[in-house]
């Protein structure tokens, strides 16, 4: 059971060494850092397994792959030895621009071929296990001819890459595009799934937004149980990127996953060496989808504020 490494928890982690199995780090927050963020990451990587999770690879863009970015990504990986490197099935910009958002790909044979070719190049370059995540999406294209699960399943098989199955994203997209999330979970190639993401989202009534700012809701836990059962259990990580709670609350949220999958967890490929968090009050905070939220913004917003005297 892993946790996303966030700036606000740096001091807590270094001082308390919480019994977290592993951390997922946002690659872009550290690949250029020559200051405190990089120092902290190296300290954490000495003690915990890490995986690198990116938001700017833009694997689906029609712009050329950015090899300056890839070189820096590889250099960071060489320093901190992540178990794998992941990013998203999306594009972030075109014509040299970056929206810093995970933009949706039209689900067609053409874009599938385009993405597969680029994944192969990236994998050859990185020389490390490479994994792609299904993003939350808010529009569909009339030109799409494939379901999302067919797209990512074929993508993973043809490119020979891993899948990061974001269970919350499956749920969010299912509500936004009116498909059955269980069908998605049942249809992806389970042997390709190497990691799960869990997160909270915001219910805007007319649609859901993947805000990573709340507890995981029950329907997502239900999907998680199904995914766990079908895959045999893989590494699970909780993302929390806005209104970030104190570290023990965050950690306790991901440890709830144990309750949802019970004894099956013994099969998990990256099992937990640490004990649970005794004494962290969870009673009464069972989540529900929140009220309509006009200002909800999808993640990612990843930025590290300076320390100055």
């Amino acid at each position, binding site marked *: 059971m892993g946790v996303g490494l966030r700036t606000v928890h740096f001091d807590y982690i270094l001082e308390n060494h919480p019994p977290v199995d592993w951390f997922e780090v946002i690659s872009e927050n550290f*690949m250029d850092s020559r200051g405190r963020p990089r120092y902290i990451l190296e300290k954490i990587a000495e003690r915990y397994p890490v995986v690198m999770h990116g938001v700017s690879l833009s694997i689906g863009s*029609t712009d050329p792959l950015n090899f300056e970015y890839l070189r820096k990504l590889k250099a960071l990986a060489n320093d901190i030895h992540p178990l794998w490197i992941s990013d998203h099935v999306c594009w972030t910009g075109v014509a040299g621009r970056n929206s*810093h958002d995970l933009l949706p790909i039209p689900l067609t044979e053409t874009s599938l071929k385009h993405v597969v070719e680029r994944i192969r190049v990236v994998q050859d370059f990185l020389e490390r296990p490479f994994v792609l995540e299904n993003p939350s999406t808010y529009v569909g294209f009339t030109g799409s001819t494939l379901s999302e699960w067919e797209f990512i399943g074929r993508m993973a098989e043809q490119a020979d890459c891993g899948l990061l199955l974001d269970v919350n994203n499956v749920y969010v997209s299912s509500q936004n595009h009116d498909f059955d999330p269980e069908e998605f979970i049942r249809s992806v190639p389970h042997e390709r799934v190497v990691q799960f993401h869990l997160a909270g989202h915001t219910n805007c009534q007319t649609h859901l937004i993947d805000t990573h700012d709340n507890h995981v809701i029950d329907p997502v836990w239900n999907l998680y149980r199904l995914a766990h059962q079908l895959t045999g259990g893989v590494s699970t990580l909780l993302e929390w990127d806005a209104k970030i709670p104190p570290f023990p609350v965050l950690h306790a949220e991901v440890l709830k996953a144990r309750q949802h999958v019970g004894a099956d967890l013994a099969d998990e490929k990256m099992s937990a060496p640490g004990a649970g968090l005794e004494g962290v009050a969870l009673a009464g905070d069972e989540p529900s989808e929140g009220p309509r939220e006009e200002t909800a913004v999808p993640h990612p917003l990843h930025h590290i504020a300076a320390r100055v005297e």
Partner: protein
Amino acid sequence: MSTPGAPSPSSELDRLQLWFQTVITDANGVDSGASSEEAQRLLQLAPGELEKVITRSRALSAAERLAIYANAYHTRLLECLGEVYPFLKRALGDEAFDGFAFGFLQDYPSRSYTLNELGRDFPRYLQETRPDDDVDSEPSDNGSSAEEAKDWPDLLIDLARLEWAIYEVFDGPGVEGQSLLTTDDILGVGPERWADARLELVPCLQLLATRLPVNDYFTRLRQAPAGEFVPVPSACESFLALTRRDFVVRRYNLSRTQFELLSGIQQGQPVGSAIEHAARVSGVGVEQLAQELKLWFARWTAEGFFRAIRSSD
């Protein structure tokens, strides 16, 4: 007719992505973006025809769905700029800051894989646009004088420059864990070789010359309770050094002479030449400086300004 300088799509996927990006990043929203010349060049769609490209959901039209991305694009990047420039935002107020930041994003959209680069050109943008008319009422509303209002744009630009410098020093190359120059190292050079010696500043040291005493203003902003107006300081050319120790950015006010001296050293001049240059520029005799120089170098050494010294032998 194609827009001069606009990229030509190399494939249908490319065309769709260029169109999508044009629509969601338009300053005036999705409808404006879809009807813009650039979007129409890529996909000719009459008003109300967005659903030829983007499906509607049970609850939302195609335009409403695209607006989720358009809103996220601007909100996210404004939020990021606000985090890079927290005290500029504080000084301006949220609404005025967002107005400038929004204009900035139109002129300087992100072209980097990292959000850390997003704010690099913001001081330049403020300098180019000189936010006089839009914000000169800000200090006046708080009982400040016309003179202060006149200095307000310069203060904002200087504050932006200071915050960007802080940001760079914080995450740029540093010297944590490395041995730095000590007073003993400097004394060991000997007075006869001192003038020809070259000092190497630590890589995280930045020097700033500003039109107003922005470093003190920054300190007062940090100390003031939220919502309390901090008076605009009088225009007065000011100088400061920024460096980093133990991963925390440190700020030091400098005199003009100190600034010129450190600038000369930073440019690689021998200490003697840097001192002569500083004395000449600031109109102070070298002899007058002699006693002060000892104190300055002792303080700067103690604060970790210097990494190495090379004497001529």
